[in-house]
């Protein structure tokens, strides 16, 4: 192991050798199970530049990053450093070539100290080839000081640190390896505003030292504040690479989402009816606040926003998981208190969570058992669950939603993602709700099943159900919604009718540095 010898010296300011360090990825393509997720993408890095990588979810950013950091190998295309072709078989080889990655899901060891996390796998040694803890701690201290973090305790276990501090540990880890290219995958996604500013300062420091930084973020304000160049990917294709001076927000957003989406989605059936659910200045702690909107019978209301904008939190508050701490919720015009999910269910609200693996389904059980779970009371006689009723319910769901399964007794695990999502629908619709909240209804399922879910949603709305849909995919929000709410920083920042909801307008509202706290 650690045969790179004592690592961890501070990266020095751009030496002549470092200046001649262009890294280039040419014509990279990558497919998974026959689906091309990256198609002939080229990308290059210059010394001391911040190169932003932009694109929607599924655009291919993560795949590109993973190729650069040695986790994936491209099917086609090549990486070259200084014009010399290189191949990374493992992350370790990418490290050795000077490419380090700060992953979005921070890859740290919670039970080990800060110092050890920074140096694990490449720790300084004494001449007996034993770990030199004192040197390790000293270098960790120096590295963190150089990242303007003298307050970070090198002897603390990483599991006790805040997310922002864990991220600093990861950055220090990357620098300990003398990284000349640092890839940062959505580094600010989980950070509070003050920590974002501090992170941006660190990025500027590194840039001044000659480190080339690949910066992935959805937040356009950060990109305009930091980046020298920006590359946009869409559906695995390279849309363009431009100097930051050549683009403005609108141009970037249309590069990201620009495509005809009208015909992909089923048309609205009938008119929206009277108002069913109304929120007046609803807040939950300081997570979401001032939420006011109404949801009509037969309507699909879309909520757009970035991860962390308060979309899901709003849904959780309506469903009583995090009951509102201020404001009023009305159903059919009369005020109601929703203190628990049971209360929400009794009021006719159903919530289909984002993560169907952990929140929506018990995958090792059968379709019948899953469908029955939300309705045990109704499906029971006395203390006993009525097996015949359960079976009938499951058969209903299979028929109604076109679930492709052998029968009610098939385990959910064996179904495709789209069909699993239909079981979740079946489970919650068996409660006969009038208001349906769907969080990321089609995440992670294939295009065909996606369209089926969309048709189903339209059908339910046509039957008079009121649907509140949360989605990270802008095309889906724009294609499915009768009206669109945009959330940003825990508030509703814009509302659009269907005809006004252009990708540019919605995208701009999503990514604007929430008005009052502009950078």
């Amino acid at each position, binding site marked *: 192991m650690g045969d790179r010898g004592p690592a961890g010296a501070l990266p020095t300011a751009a030496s002549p050798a470092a200046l001649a360090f262009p890294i280039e990825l040419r014509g990279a393509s990558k497919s998974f199970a026959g689906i091309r997720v990256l198609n002939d993408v080229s990308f290059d890095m210059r010394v001391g530049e911040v190169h932003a990588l932009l694109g929607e979810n599924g655009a291919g950013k993560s795949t590109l990053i993973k190729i650069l950091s040695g986790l994936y190998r491209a099917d086609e295309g090549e990486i070259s450093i200084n014009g010399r072709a290189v191949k990374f078989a493992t992350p370790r080889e990418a490290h050795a070539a000077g490419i380090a990655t700060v992953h979005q899901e921070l890859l740290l060891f*919670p039970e080990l100290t800060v110092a050890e996390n920074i140096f694990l796998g490449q720790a300084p040694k004494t001449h007996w080839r034993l770990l030199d803890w004192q040197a390790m701690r000293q270098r960790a201290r120096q590295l963190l000081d150089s990242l303007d973090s003298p307050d970070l305790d090198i002897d603390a276990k990483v599991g006790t640190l805040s997310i922002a501090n864990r991220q600093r540990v990861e950055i220090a880890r990357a620098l300990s390896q003398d990284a000349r290219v640092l890839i940062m995958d959505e580094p600010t996604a989980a950070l509070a505003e003050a920590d974002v500013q501090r992170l941006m300062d660190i990025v500027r420091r590194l840039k001044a030292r000659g480190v080339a930084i690949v910066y992935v973020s959805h937040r356009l304000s950060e990109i305009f504040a930091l980046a020298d160049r920006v590359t946009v990917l869409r559906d695995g294709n390279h849309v363009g690479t431009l100097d930051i001076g050549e683009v403005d927000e609108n141009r970037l957003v249309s590069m990201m989402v620009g495509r005809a989406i009208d015909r992909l989605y089923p048309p609205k059936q009938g008119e929206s009816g009277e108002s069913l659910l109304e929120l007046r200045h609803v807040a939950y702690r300081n997570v979401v606040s001032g939420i006011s909107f109404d949801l009509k019978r037969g309507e699909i209301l879309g909520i757009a926003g970035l991860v962390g904008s308060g979309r899901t939190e709003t849904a959780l508050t309506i469903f009583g998981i995090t009951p509102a701490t201020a404001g009023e919720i009305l159903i059919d015009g009369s005020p109601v208190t929703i203190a628990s999910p049971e209360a929400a269910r009794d009021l006719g609200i159903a919530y289909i969570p984002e993560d169907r693996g952990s929140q929506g389904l018990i995958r090792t059980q059968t379709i019948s058992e899953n469908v029955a779970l939300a309705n045990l009371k109704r499906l029971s006689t006395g203390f006993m669950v009525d097996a015949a009723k359960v079976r009938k319910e499951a058969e209903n769901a299979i028929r109604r939603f076109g679930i492709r399964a052998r029968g009610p007794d098939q385990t959910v695990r064996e179904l495709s993602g789209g069909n699993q999502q239909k079981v979740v629908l079946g489970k919650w619709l068996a409660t006969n709700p009038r208001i349906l909240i769907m969080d990321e209804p089609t995440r992670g399922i294939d295009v065909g099943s996606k369209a089926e879910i969309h048709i189903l949603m339209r059908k339910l709305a046509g039957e008079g159900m009121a649907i509140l849909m949360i989605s990270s995919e802008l095309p889906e929000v724009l294609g499915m919604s009768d009206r669109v709410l945009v959330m940003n920083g825990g508030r509703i920042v814009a509302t659009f009718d269907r005809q006004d909801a252009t990708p540019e307008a919605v995208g701009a509202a999503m990514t604007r540095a929430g008005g009052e706290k502009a950078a």
Partner: protein
Amino acid sequence: MSNAATTVPIGRTPFRRFLGGYGQEIVVLLSIAALFAVVGAVNQRFLSDNNINAIFAGNAYIAIAAIGMSMVIVSGHIDVSVGSLIGVIATMAGTLAVSGYPVWIAWVAPILFAIAVNAGVGALIAYTRIPSIVVTLGMLSILKGGLISVTAGAWITNLPAEFMIAQMRPFGIPSAVWFMVGLTVIAALFMRYTDFGRAIYAVGGNIEAARAAGLNPERTVVGVFALHGFFAGIAGILFATQLQVIQSTVPPNLELTVITASVIGGVSILGGTGTVIGSTLAAILFACIGSALIFLNVSAYWLRAVLGLMILATVLADMARRRRAR
């Protein structure tokens, strides 16, 4: 290390680092001290040389097996077959000794066997991803069943005197105690100061992060199980040579006692943290409790109940600590 006082502090003081890194070990050590003080006050004979020798020497093999077990649990796995393995090793060593093989072969060959068996178990776990509890449960049955079939439970007697390593007393101290102390110190330094030692913590703490750090988690797991085999082998030899007779059966509940020592010594059942010093101290603590029950005229059957309570208390404390750390 010692000039920290003259320079600007770079982190916590050595004392605070010691408290932070060895919390559970300190608790166990204090428990042992308290037990000696209280039981010794009630019954002087508890502190007699004979009894202290019996406590330490008679249970050293458990502490040694717990060293390997701690490594396995730190790496994120578990081995429930170690009791059976020790039974097989003891029988094997005794059979070789009475069959006229040189004593050193009777000692070394079973240890090599244990290393090979456990390396195989480790490879199966690492490369097929079958959970370790399943693989080692299978191993438990194979070893136990094999042992009884082959020996039909016959006792091995007339062991040669020079074979009885556990009964030797270099410098007046039982060799089992030398082994326990020596192996614990070596293993503790190994876990703390070598790449491989730290890789065990890394793999048990976050396997994906370990991979990203360039470690090879599969090879680490195989290595850990092989080491565990080495310690189990030594434990088996000491167990075989403790008494004048080897019973050719598996000592009941031995694996549970060994796992309990690791857990109470501060090794988290979730992996990634704990030390072998803790597990050795915990093994000593059990031995003290067992002996104390006798001196306090309490039925020895209470020992298991006491151990059970201690496991629950330790695991609850671990969970609470982790929740606070979130």
